[in-house]
């Protein structure tokens, strides 16, 4: 086992940031900590990184603890913190070279990493002149410099445009094949789905759910969704009669409603017939599978991006 977190708690003044969390991460596993802002993800990973000390509980990494083996663990963990700003007037290569020096690595590794993060053409560019995506790639490059056994990334793509996000995902996907254990915090469900086999959903300092995407959807998110907006009176009294409907919701003020159904193909034609025969007009219709955000909403009453 690579990481074992046992009954860990952490508070800041009167806020309980992490409440009695336990977690085990196996070697080579890719785990996403998913949750909205303030869920406790960053505090948890900072305790794993040795940046914060737990108020209670125990964290073991590679069978070692921060109190006794800090120097060893610093060499084995690569990390990218939220919002690190590197020195503006050092070049990309100088920044990588400086951090390589901290790990006792030479220029050969610096050049390898430059290639991995696809910043060879920017090697002589000052950090201040890089785009947001390029800076995040540099942060990732510094994280992977020492060929760490564990890579921890705290919201690596927050604030990036979709293209820059996909570039970073591609690099991470390639890097995962080296067998490194990956822990990623994010509030983007697509990121968690794309990069990690295992997803841990957190809210208010606690773990709400833990499993693969399929396990989570099977366990907590039975059924598909039909979402609609209508102009007129409420047809939902009769939707329960359609068959295959697990639950339904209706907001009379906005006209928005949704049905959770066993099978979209079975229920949708009946729903459309019902609308046609009633005194209302359908202004919007969307049918989709349930997502992690739906699960999270069902469990916590909040959306992931809140």
């Amino acid at each position: 086992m690579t990481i074992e977190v046992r009954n860990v708690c952490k508070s800041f003044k009167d806020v309980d940031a992490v409440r009695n969390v336990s977690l085990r991460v196996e070697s080579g596993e890719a785990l996403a900590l998913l949750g909205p802002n303030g869920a406790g993800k960053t505090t948890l990973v900072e305790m794993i990184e040795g940046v914060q000390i737990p108020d209670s509980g125990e964290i073991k990494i590679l069978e070692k603890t921060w109190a006794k083996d800090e120097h060893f663990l610093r060499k084995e963990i690569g990390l990218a913190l939220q919002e690190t700003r590197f020195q503006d007037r050092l070049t990309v290569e100088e920044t990588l070279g400086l951090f390589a020096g901290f790990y006792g690595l030479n220029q050969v590794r610096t050049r390898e990493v430059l290639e991995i993060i696809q910043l060879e053409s920017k090697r002589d560019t000052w950090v201040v002149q890089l785009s947001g995506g390029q800076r995040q790639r540099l942060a990732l490059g510094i994280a992977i410099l020492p060929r760490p056994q564990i890579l921890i990334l705290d919201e690596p793509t927050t604030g990036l445009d979709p293209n820059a996000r996909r570039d970073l995902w591609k690099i991470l996907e390639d890097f995962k094949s080296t067998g490194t254990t990956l822990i990623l915090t994010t509030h983007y469900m697509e990121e968690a789905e794309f990069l990690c086999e295992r997803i841990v959903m957190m809210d208010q300092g606690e773990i709400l759910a833990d499993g693969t995407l399929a396990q989570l959807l099977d366990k907590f998110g039975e059924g598909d969704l039909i979402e609609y907006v209508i102009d007129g009176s409420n047809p939902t009294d009769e939707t329960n009669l359609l068959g295959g409907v697990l639950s339904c919701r209706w907001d009379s003020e906005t006209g928005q409603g949704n049905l959770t159904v066993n099978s979209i193909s079975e229920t949708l034609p009946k729903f459309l017939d019902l609308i046609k025969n009633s005194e209302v007009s359908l202004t919007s219709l969307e049918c989709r599978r349930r997502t992690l955000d739906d699960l999270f909403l069902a469990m916590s009453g909040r959306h992931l991006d809140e």
Partner: protein
Amino acid sequence: MNSILFQLVISQFKLFFREPGVVFWSFGFPVVMAWILGIAFANKGEILRNVAIVTENPAVVSALPKWLHEKSGTVDNQLSGEAELEWEVGMNAGDQARFRFRAMSEEEAVLALKRGQISLWIEGSPETNLSYRFDPDNADARLTYLLLETAFREKISSEIKAEIRPLTMVGIRYVDFLIPGLMAMSIMNACLWGIGWNLIELRIKKLLRRIVATPLRKSIFLISHGLNRMILSAAEMLLLYIFAYFYFDIRIQGSLLALALVFLSGYCAFAGIAILISSRVQNTQSGYGMINIVTMPMFILSGIFFSYHNFPDWLIPYVEVLPLTMLTNSLRGIITEGIGLAQVIQPSLGLFGIGAVCFALGLKLYLWH
């Protein structure tokens, strides 16, 4: 040298020299300040002293009175009847003075005084009574009054006046007083801004947290900052001295070894203070505030530009234990008085002590994350 320490120091040099503003404030500013203040106070020549003559009669407010032309010996001059008159008195350095008189109404004189265009005005006439109007707490106004009064009296007196013999020995000029003060100030600024502010900035950027998450030893990291600034600070001092040597003909009278010891102890004191004040600060405003709260009182009290002996007696013992005062006095002693190692050991130990206490306290409190 440890290779990573060397690499860190080199990186910090690159960052320093890639910021033209920082280079100017570190190297250019002390030299420019020495030049301006040295010129302003050392080669003053005769300052032109502006004096208003307030005429009681509004009809002749634009003309200077006849008695002034008589007293200044310009009665037959073409300027007679004009609104402005320049008068130069004295033969030797020390009793020379230049005055410029302007005729004004009282209202105009008050306004000119408020604007700093004059420091006193004269009312009345010698026949009735001459009144000098000025703020008695203004030293410059009092000097103008004394010079003017003497000049007027000399014009009508044939008494033998006392002789003034200017002092010209080494080390007594204002610039001799100023340069060691500027050197001390430069060491203080190099440490508090160069080390203290840099570390605060690294914390604000969360780069400090990222660096200590690597296997790099914290002591190496701090030493690299101290070493980098010590080299730069020594270069700043050397540049300032070279300028003072060639431009103001200033020579170090005392021991170079003592100078090295004082520099090192002063540097250690301010480096320690820099670590302490940067230990907990987490935002820009607090950073500026903390550094200013430490530098400003010393800047004013420690005798950089003017002697602190003008302060009340009760304050002087406190001023003398300020690190900047100890450093300035030691540097001044070595450069202008020619003191040696024995005389600077005590203040140097005091400075090392301040540095060690602040450093230890700073490390204990240090917020690395």
